[in-house]
């Protein structure tokens, strides 16, 4: 068991200071353009203090709380993948000289990030992307380095959105490890954070903060709050999903979904595990330098499956089928884990509110009948 200590909310900046002393670049939640996004943050003042989000299929709204809670929101449109697998990254720069080509840039070391406010479902997503980018025969060095260096400050959820279904997926809302520090925020008479260290680096940092041990009542209160967040109206039973997806490849349901789906790719971009990319080769005017850029792409985008003058998956139904059967089905065969963590982002950020927890049972019903 890891000992739990208490950090008073007014001392939260000590955590940021300790991370700064260790030369981490802190990134975490902050309010911008009407949403809680992940960005550079310098201290507790940058956190979405006093804000929460209300979410529903196709809906996201920021609201004021009547307290000063820093982490009483759920998850926004961003996920940590944007730091480990940046939306665009230059892979190399080449120069053409005396008839040959040579690389002229060096692999740039990624920043040493401290991720502040990582939710349990997001830890699950990190573990999944670890397998995608570093678990195969080839490894993405940038991802591997950024991930290895990252200091993860996780937060157990004490609120969940109607779009959350991490409980059913077994990924949350409680943080149980795979991080450096785990916080649980308690608001009420006292505004405090219960702090658990889950790594040697985390323990060392907690020692430096010189915290008091948590009282039993505080631990109870934390468990109750996280337990309340575990009561979720949406659910997806992961059992048998790959088989269902495999059996549903020619289900008429895909056409029904395609009548609503705009093929906008939002669901894949907000998904914390989607990893697809495109590359663009560019050269400068002199023709002496060329670069390759890698950018996020999506199986919904035109050109993604381009072959012989056209896309293999032309119909929206085929594109939606790729997304859902990959996420919930073939992912398991490829990476020995589901590609879904139950964060609900694809439900919230779908402009037409398509809800995978509703579509899966319909597929299952189609199969049964």
């Amino acid at each position, binding site marked *: 068991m890891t000992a739990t200590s208490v950090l008073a909310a007014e001392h939260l900046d000590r955590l940021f200071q300790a991370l700064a002393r260790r030369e981490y670049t802190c990134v975490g939640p902050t309010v911008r353009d009407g949403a809680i996004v992940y960005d550079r943050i310098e201290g507790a003042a940058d956190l979405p203090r006093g804000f929460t989000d209300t979410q529903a299929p196709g809906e996201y709204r920021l609201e004021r709380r009547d307290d000063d809670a820093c982490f009483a929101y759920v998850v926004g449109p961003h996920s940590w993948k944007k730091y480990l697998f940046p939306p665009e990254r230059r892979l190399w720069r080449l120069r053409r000289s005396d008839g040959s080509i040579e690389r002229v840039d060096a692999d740039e070391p990624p920043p040493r990030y401290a991720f502040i406010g990582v939710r349990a479902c997001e830890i699950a997503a*990190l573990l999944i992307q670890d397998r995608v980018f570093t678990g195969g*025969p080839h490894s*993405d060095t940038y991802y591997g380095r950024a991930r290895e260096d990252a200091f993860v400050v996780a937060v157990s959820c004490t609120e969940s959105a109607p779009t959350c279904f991490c409980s059913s997926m077994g990924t949350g809302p409680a943080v149980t490890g795979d991080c450096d520090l785990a916080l649980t925020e308690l608001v009420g008479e006292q505004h405090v954070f219960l702090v658990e260290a889950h790594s040697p680096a985390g323990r060392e940092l907690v020692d430096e903060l010189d915290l008091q041990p948590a009282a039993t009542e505080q631990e109870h209160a934390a468990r109750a709050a996280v337990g309340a967040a575990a009561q979720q109206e949406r659910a997806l039973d992961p059992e048998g999903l790959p088989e269902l997806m495999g059996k549903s490849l020619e289900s008429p349901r895909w056409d029904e979904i395609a009548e609503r789906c705009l093929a906008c790719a939002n669901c894949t971009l907000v998904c914390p595990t989607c990893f697809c990319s495109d590359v663009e080769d560019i050269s400068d005017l002199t023709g002496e330098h060329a670069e390759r850029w890698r950018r996020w792409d999506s199986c919904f985008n035109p050109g993604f*499956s381009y072959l012989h003058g056209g896309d293999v998956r032309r119909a929206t139904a085929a594109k939606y089928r790729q997304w859902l059967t990959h996420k919930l089905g073939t992912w398991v065969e490829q990476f020995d884990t589901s590609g879904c963590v139950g964060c609900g982002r694809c439900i919230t950020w779908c402009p037409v509110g398509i809800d995978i927890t509703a579509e899966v049972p319909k597929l299952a019903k189609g199969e049964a009948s």
Partner: protein
Amino acid sequence: MAVGTERAAASADDVWVPRPWVVRSATREIGDTVTLEIEPRDASAARPVAPGQFMMLYIFGVGEVPISVSGTGPTSGLLHTVRDVGAVTHALCNLGVGDVLGARGPFGSAWPIDEHKGCDVVIAAGGIGLAPLRPVVRHVLERRGEYDDVVVLYGSRQPDQLLYTPEFERWRAAGIQVEVTVDHADQTWDGHIGVVPTLVRHARFQVDEAAAFLCGPEVMMRFMAQELVDRGVVPERIHLSLERNMKCAVGMCGRCQLGPEFLCLDGPVFPWTRVERLMAVPEL
């Protein structure tokens, strides 16, 4: 911190960088198709390559495309037969001797030829699909005694689009049956007319001892595989090479997926039994 971060042997940042290779020869096979013989400028960039595998060939500032190995050159070189269908393949087809291109690889799975020693061999190809299979023909030629009856069934749209025709006599001389068909004949043509699977009835091989290797348009491969299975060829001994969009070739860009398969890692060569069901689903 290292949470589940397993360090893999090769780093993708290295495999993403094209190395300089030099064109040793460029031979126009037919109107729109050229065979390049390329060699690494720095011998340390050379890797063992197996028939069926492909390289990512890069034209400076233009782009990079997957191209199968169509043979090995006299020294350390590789042969690639490229059909000019777009920007990158056009630039590849216009390379001259001494020109430098970028290359990385090889990637992907190989034709399981050695595993089928002692078998009859059926090689069926359509169009440019003969390129990835030519190393199989050459392999069999070099070890003719290790295989029984060998048949090449090949077709293209028109007679002037047939690849490697000058080699066919050599193949026949080694006792390989070569049957060729075209979709549209002209006055010069006195051979078979029709799609490749119709050639099976002319092929002399023992169905229960045959291994088959197919490459060409997907419909052709599906009909061919079905035809062979119908005639009694063991489905597990039928292999085919598939094609999908590919940008990274190292299993990360996600574009080459066909169901659970990443074509760049698990393929492009698959046993028919592994992809039959997937290939039957439109737009998968």
